């Protein structure tokens, strides 16, 4: 019994230590962001690496989700004679939920893993230690620009996902099924609130961007400097980021959309 309690205590202490380390690194990163912005090319290069290079998968997924939403939405709406609300349904689903959440999950898989593997391999190859010994702080030079780039990229990727999804829904709903184009766009325009729907969607993508980029960087930075360690860290990034995004989405949705 005492052995069990001791192991429980050790585990709890381990979790607290991890949370403490993570919080300290987060505060450090936020504090280092302005210093990192003095050399904007470091951040823009990362926006290109983690943002631009994620464009294809984001756009392709946005198109697929838009196509499926339009098909499923049309079947249900047409039962109630509300097929012309298809544009509104797809737009609300995309900007409020699907856009931010699916973009964040794809981002964790595409960019998050690449960040974790890159930082982990830099650690394994002693590149971070070499920077330290050259009096260059890796948190300012390596982590902060990537953190900023993630925060900048995520809302943009989320917006592209939703825009492509709406266009795909237009293709299915208007061009293929034959819903009136005017009704498709005007219902969307009337029903989607810029602040409440789009604004909250953007806030979600920013929060998800902060969470998944930080998780990827933290796990990479703390990873064991071995091939197994880096492999494990990469997997962990996807699992922890995805669960965090889904949990945060529930909390944010409850806060943002709890009143009709």
């Amino acid at each position: 019994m005492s052995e069990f309690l001791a192991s429980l205590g050790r585990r709890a202490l381990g979790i607290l230590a991890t949370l403490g380390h993570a919080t300290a690194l987060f505060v450090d990163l936020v504090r280092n962001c302005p210093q990192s912005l003095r050399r904007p090319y470091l951040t823009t290069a990362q926006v290109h690496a983690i943002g631009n290079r994620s464009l294809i998968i984001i756009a392709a997924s946005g198109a697929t989700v838009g196509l499926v939403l339009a098909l499923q939405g049309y079947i249900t709406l047409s039962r109630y004679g509300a097929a012309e609300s298809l544009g509104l349904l797809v737009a609300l689903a995309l900007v409020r939920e699907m856009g931010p959440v699916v973009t964040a999950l794809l981002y964790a898989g595409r960019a998050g893993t690449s960040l974790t593997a890159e930082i982990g391999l830099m650690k394994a190859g002693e590149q971070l230690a070499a920077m330290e010994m050259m009096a260059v702080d890796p948190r300012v030079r390596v982590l902060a620009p990537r953190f900023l780039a993630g925060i900048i990229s995520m809302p943009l990727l989320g917006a592209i996902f939703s825009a492509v999804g709406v266009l795909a829904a237009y293709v299915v709903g208007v061009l293929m099924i034959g819903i009136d184009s005017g009704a498709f766009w005007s219902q969307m325009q009337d029903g989607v609130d810029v602040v409440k729907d789009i604004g909250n969607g953007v806030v979600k993508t920013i929060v998800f961007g902060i969470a998944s980029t930080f998780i990827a960087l933290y796990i990479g930075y703390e990873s064991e400097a071995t091939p197994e360690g880096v492999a494990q860290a990469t997997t962990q990034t996807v699992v922890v980021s995805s669960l965090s995004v889904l949990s945060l989405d529930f909390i944010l949705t409850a806060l943002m959309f709890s009143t009709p």
Partner: protein
Amino acid sequence: MAQPHDAIGAAGNNALVSIQEVTFGYDARVVLSNVSLEFDRGKVIAIMGSSGCGKTTLLRLIGGVITPQAGKILFSGAPIDTSDRSSLYALRRRMGMLFQFGALFTDLSVFENVAYPLREHTRLSEQMIRDIVLMKLDAVGLRGAATLRIAEVSGGMARRVALARAIALDPEIIMYDEPFAGLDPISLGVTANLIRHLNDATGATSLIVSHDVEECFRICDFAYLVSGGRVVARGTPQQLQATEDPEVRQFIRGEPDGPVRFHYPAAPIAQDFGIGA
């Protein structure tokens, strides 16, 4: 005469780095126990010992990467304070470190790797950076390789690029972590000669951590032998070679058994195999 104890070395007041009664360990495992060493300015000093004896730990202590649990380390007479990041970084700008496998930035070219500390710590013009980088690369014989990617250079060349990077800011001390490990005989000889010549040309202090007795003795002015977390001998290469201390002789001659046992402590062999009485 080699001194098989932990008294402070004969470096006198000319010491650039002074390690005084330092103890360091990880949890219950003691890596260094009450060791004292001094490294004279302008000298090539070797710290030798078998793998895991605490040699690299000494470099990490000097670089302020880790903090001793007891004792102190002085650099140019001032204690190394690992709690103050800005003063620690100011100190590290006066140091150069060659990592065992180079630790080069694989996303940058050879030129950009050497230019890295210059770009980070100086406001020199692009022309000036170019000239300095080419001079440093020329010193290690790789001026012609400036445009190559890191993936295109061999292990020995990578070590030399890392050396050019380590001396880019003309440090007062250059620390070499296993500079001869994994090199072919030609690269090994080239690296050893470079360490000696660069030291003589720049007037820096060179600290080599290695277990390559032959190469270390060929180029160093003074050597320490570390074993079991203690300094077991110190002296010039000639003094160490002449010593009668059995542990030093075993290490220098590479004998498999002696004071350092070949077998890890274990139960009697008959007991493990269930034979005999």
